């Protein structure tokens, strides 16, 4: 097998530590819940450490693909194990690491069927990491499905509200997405005539005709777009988020939805740039509808997690809008927003998780006045909600700013529509904050404890990340730019 | 318009009519009896079309053996008394539609095919000729068919055997 490794295979190490966690947990007996959680924490911490290392070890001045690992696997079909890091996937890898680690810590209090939960959880995250780092179409598809199928048991067993319905809906939606992706990938494979699934080779200009690109792009866009919550294929996401247990919601909204957007970027836009240019108008339309639609529907929700779910729809609309602009800033903003939204949603779900574990309700009407009872837990939520409104100084502001700016430049009317959603999103977030955390304390919950320090760790990490990238956006943007500038400049005119 | 032509049409009408009555009869015994007439008609038609041996076999095997076997079974299990359910609409409507389509298609094909207007001339293949032909050309098939009949007999025996009593001899 011909191999190519540039130094120590850090990317594979991430996958291996995930899989190692998976197998160790499988081997441990069910009763040793404590050990299982520690194994989970250590392995996920290792992935986070590796992701952070990669993020800072990446040579920004050189750019391009780094940490390349390539092994021929099935040469006759041109399938290879091909991982690499660039400016687009490193932020996402970092995000996955953060959300994964904090997700494990958030589920620290889980008591039922701990072993199965963490095993499935690790499997899901393996798929996520694999997808982000893979540069081979075949593996992208495989990882996509690996990350999806544990969702069903995770939601259906450990979920809460209408869990079977939510799990079923989510799984069916996402499988429908993969049913669109697979033919598109095979179509590209066959049409290229190169007998390879290698994205780098397939993305050479002139590989596909304009017609082929248009056809494949729309399939890939819709297929991955379903996972990214593109309007009108978004209804799985609130339902799924509500039903899922908190740690899963975190990964789900924080990372899994990014997979969709990342897939659109990595597969659809990389391979079919002309298709992208052709369909960009449609993308922008759907995205801006999604932005305003998400907040308006969220306005009427009565369940805390539904609210977050719809805000995700809106924020992912911003990502989609950024991807549709065909400008450097739009792409930067989109990738930045992927990262920022991931962290922010993870924080939202994490704090809601804490509150739900104590009060056993997510109905906004039944909560109220929580700020008095648990100021710290409320504080986490409020910070995340502020981030959701795009308050400066918090990470998602920059993503929104860049996206809206370039959207306004490219599509003035749709951009204006999306910008006007800013006001509504404030209304919607503040309404939730007011009803849940302000007002007189509910006597039912007066005796509840605030977040102790040990349980606050994951939330603190997330807040720190939000603030860090809110104040120093260049940390992330410089990284993204190493990928976005060559990509945009390389587009056929 | 020869006598043979008249004969053919008379036979054709007779066959179709009796078959039609047979398949719509609710009483099974009547249906079988009508079908026997249909087969007699077919036998005559075979004779008309120059196959006397086959005509004889038709009468003996079809009208004689097979139909009698039917009657025998029907009477054995007292089937006349059983109410037959009307088939549902979803069942016979497609059947009728397909039938009509099929007939229409057949008619079109028959009339557009080049050789369909070819007039049939009377001729006769004597039983001797047919017998010789069969045993010269198709002796292996004859053997296979005989084997098939044997297998069928054994199979029928096996199926008809009553488990609890250890089996009764079935004709």
């Amino acid at each position, binding site marked *: 097998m011909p191999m190519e490794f540039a130094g120590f295979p850090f990317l594979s190490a991430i996958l291996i530590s995930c899989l190692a966690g998976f197998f160790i947990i499988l081997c441990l007996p069910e009763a040793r819940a404590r050990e299982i959680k520690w194994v989970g924490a250590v392995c996920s911490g290792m992935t986070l450490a590796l992701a952070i290392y990669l993020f800072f070890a990446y040579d920004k001045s050189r750019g391009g693909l780094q940490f390349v690992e390539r092994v021929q696997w099935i040469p006759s079909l041109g399938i290879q194990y091909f991982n690499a890091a660039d400016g687009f996937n490193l932020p996402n890898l970092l995000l996955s690491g953060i959300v994964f680690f904090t997700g494990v810590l958030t589920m620290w209090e889980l008591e039922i069927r701990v072993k199965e939960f963490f095993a499935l959880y690790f499997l899901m995250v393996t798929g996520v990491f694999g997808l982000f780092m893979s540069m081979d179409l075949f593996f992208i598809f495989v990882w996509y499905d690996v990350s999806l199928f544990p969702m069903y048991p995770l939601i259906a067993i450990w979920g809460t509200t209408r869990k079977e319905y939510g799990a079923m809906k989510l799984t069916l939606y996402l499988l429908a997405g993969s049913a669109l992706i697979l033919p598109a990938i095979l179509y590209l494979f066959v049409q290229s005539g190169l007998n390879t699934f290698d994205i780098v080779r397939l993305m050479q200009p002139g590989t596909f005709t304009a017609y082929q690109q248009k056809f494949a792009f729309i399939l890939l866009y819709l297929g991955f777009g379903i996972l990214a919550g593109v309007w*009108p294929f*978004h209804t799985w996401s609130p339902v799924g988020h509500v039903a899922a247990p908190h740690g899963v919601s975190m990964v789900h909204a924080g990372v899994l939805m990014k997979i969709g957007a990342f897939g659109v970027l990595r597969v659809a836009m990389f391979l079919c740039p002309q298709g992208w240019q052709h369909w960009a108008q449609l993308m922008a339309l759907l995205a801006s509808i999604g932005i305003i639609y998400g907040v308006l529907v969220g306005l009427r929700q009565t369940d805390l997690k539904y609210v977050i779910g719809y805000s995700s729809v809106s924020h992912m609309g911003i990502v989609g809008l950024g991807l549709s602009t065909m400008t450097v800033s739009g792409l930067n903003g989109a990738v930045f927003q992927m990262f920022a939204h991931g962290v922010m949603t993870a924080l939202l779900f994490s704090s809601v998780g804490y509150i739900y574990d104590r009060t056993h309700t997510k109905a906004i009407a039944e909560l109220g006045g929580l700020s008095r009872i648990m100021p710290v837990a409320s504080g986490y939520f409020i910070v995340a909600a502020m981030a959701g409104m795009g308050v400066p100084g918090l990470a998602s502001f*920059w993503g929104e700013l860049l996206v809206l700016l370039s959207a*306004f430049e490219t599509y003035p009317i749709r951009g204006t529509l999306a910008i006007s959603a800013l006001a509504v999103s404030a209304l919607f977030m503040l309404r939730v904050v*007011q009803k849940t955390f302000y007002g007189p304390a509910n006597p039912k919950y007066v005796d509840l404890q605030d977040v102790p320090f040990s349980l606050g760790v994951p939330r603190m990490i997330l807040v720190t990340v939000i603030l860090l990238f809110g104040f120093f956006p*260049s940390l992330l943007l410089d990284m993204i730019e190493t990928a976005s500038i060559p990509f945009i400049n390389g587009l056929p005119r | 318009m020869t006598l043979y032509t008249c004969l053919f049409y008379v036979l054709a009408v007779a066959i179709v009519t009796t078959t039609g009555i047979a398949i719509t009869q609710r009483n099974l015994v009547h249906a079988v009896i009508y079908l026997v007439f249909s087969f007699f008609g077919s036998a005559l038609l075979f004779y008309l079309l120059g196959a006397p041996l086959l005509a004889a076999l038709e009468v003996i095997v079809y009208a004689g053996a097979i139909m009698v076997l039917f009657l025998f079974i029907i009477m054995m299990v007292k089937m006349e008394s059983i109410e037959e359910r009307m088939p549902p609409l979803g069942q016979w409507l*497609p059947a009728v539609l*397909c039938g009509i*389509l099929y007939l229409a298609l057949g008619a079109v094909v028959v009339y557009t095919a080049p050789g369909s207007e070819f007039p049939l001339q009377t001729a006769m293949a004597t039983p001797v000729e047919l017998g010789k032909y069969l045993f010269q050309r198709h002796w292996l098939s004859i053997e296979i068919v005989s084997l098939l009949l044997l297998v069928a007999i054994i199979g029928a025996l096996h199926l008809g055997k009553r488990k609890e009593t250890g089996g009764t001899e079935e004709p």
Partner: protein
Amino acid sequence: MAVPWVSDLTLLAAILATLLPLCSFLVVMLFTRSHPRISAGLSIGAMSVSLLCALFLLNEHWHMEKPLEYAGRWLVSGSIEIPFGFLLDPVSLLMLAVVAVIGFLIQIYSLGYMAGDPGISRYYAFMSLFLWAMMSLVVAPTLFQLYIFWELVGLSSYLLIGFWYEKFSASQAGKKAFIMTRAGDVAMFLGMLLILLHLGNLSILEIDSPALAARMSPRLLTLSALLIFGGIIGKSAQFPLMTWLPDAMQGPTPVSALLHSSTMVAAGVYLFERLFPFFFFSPDAMTFGLFIGTLSMLLASTMALVTRDIKEIWAYSTISQLGYMIMGLDAGAFFSGAFHLTTHAAFKALLFLCSGVLIHTFETNDIYELGRKGGRSLKVPMACCCIAAGALAGLPPLSGFFSKGLILEGLADLSNPVWLIAALFGAFLTAYYAFRPIFIILFPREASGEPEVHSATSTSKDHSAGHSSSHYWLMGWPLILLAGATLCLGFLKAPLEHFMGQTALPGVKGIGHPVWLLYTEIILAVGGVGLAWMEFGRRCAQQVGFVEKIPALHRLFAERWYLDHFYGWFVDRVIDRGVSALFTQNDHRVIDGSIDGISRGTVETGRLISHMHLGMVQYRLLAMFVVMVLLAFYFFF
């Protein structure tokens, strides 16, 4: 990023001035939440250093030829570059000093006012955040940075207005403030993008230079000016986004003082000052601004005529004074607006702080009740209050007289006399409503047929008396300082005008000084005070205002011209029950419905097909038959 800059003392001072409050915010939030004394000390300490730096900067650059600009790279994305830095010119230096002074005094005052509140650490943290945001806004060199801090100012005022979050009205008011200003911000953001698209960057100095006018067509220029003015409308609570400001008094009184004088609402006018040349290039936008300013000024004055809540009166007066500033600026008199902003900051802070003492002592906001409980017995606050009200009314020789006079002179230069007449009428109303509460508190009438509910007032009075003596002077000193400022600021007009005029701003007119205007102003102010005296002050007065004698008018004013009803209706009916409900239904019925329909269809199809798998021979026969027919068709055609 500050390393090579440290040698520059100016820059160091600017960095210190703006950054220290942020540090104190972070430290308080993260570490000293449970130690109120340390938190307060940290916050005040940071603020005092900021104050010193601000004053140092003002002193250092009292004579400057051209604006100083420092910028460091903050963010680069494609062609968009967002620098972070400082722009120091007379406009920003003066405002920085004003914010620092008032912020510092209010923080001292809060020591007394907030004593005993469980959330005092949080209070000081938010205060620091607020002041940081405002001071950074003031020195922002680009519209981007300004917008960022503009949003942060909105956020921190949201947090402070809703500080007592257990009170429904407080959290509601905070929300309202944030959302209404956000609505304006959306317009401002659009305007900003419009400029960015044509100019390529958002440096304030470049926007103010005539180069921009050359690059944009007049219509686009007007459009972007109007959009940015939308942001000002929201922030400075002008018509039609004015109703959040009166509600914002639900926060602690020092917060209101800060909010109304030098930070939140001042930010809007400050932006106008900042972009004054830019607005000046589009006469249509200027006229529109004049119209909005006048309208808000008059509307707010009428509302102030009838309300009984002392803080609400001052809140309306803020709106009307902001209206004056915007009128002055829109009339082209740049210095008049800036000067009125400065003097207003002093006397409005004073007014609120005085009322704060009264409210703190008597635990009520109602002016009649304050009078009845003996508001006149608090000598220092009442005296200061009178001075401030006099400044508000424009009585000579207080500061408000000079600044308002400047605005009137600017308006007199306009060809259309309508604006001047409106402004003079407003001046009369101002004097009237400023002294109405003063007289009511000073000369209480016993049981004038007002059925007041005396619920738990006596106990609360004891409670407040317990700690008031020690805190009284903590609150008193800032009052006296501010009263002094109110008294003398007017005489600083000439040096300030010289200072502000140093960096040549385009479009500033030479202002004439018609003498009759001065007299008219004095006569109207005195007339307004006199009318208030006639109705509320003299011994046999009924203490019923002339507006209250006309029920319809009274109702209209008390209901704030039904603006709130309109917004309530709009948010509730149109957005919440209209669009939002429609979309929710769409989600449930159409999208989910069709998806569920598909799944149900699949299940039904499966059931249909499963009929064929009943083990029923006839269906198979039928299928064979059908397939045969189809095959026949296929082969023959």
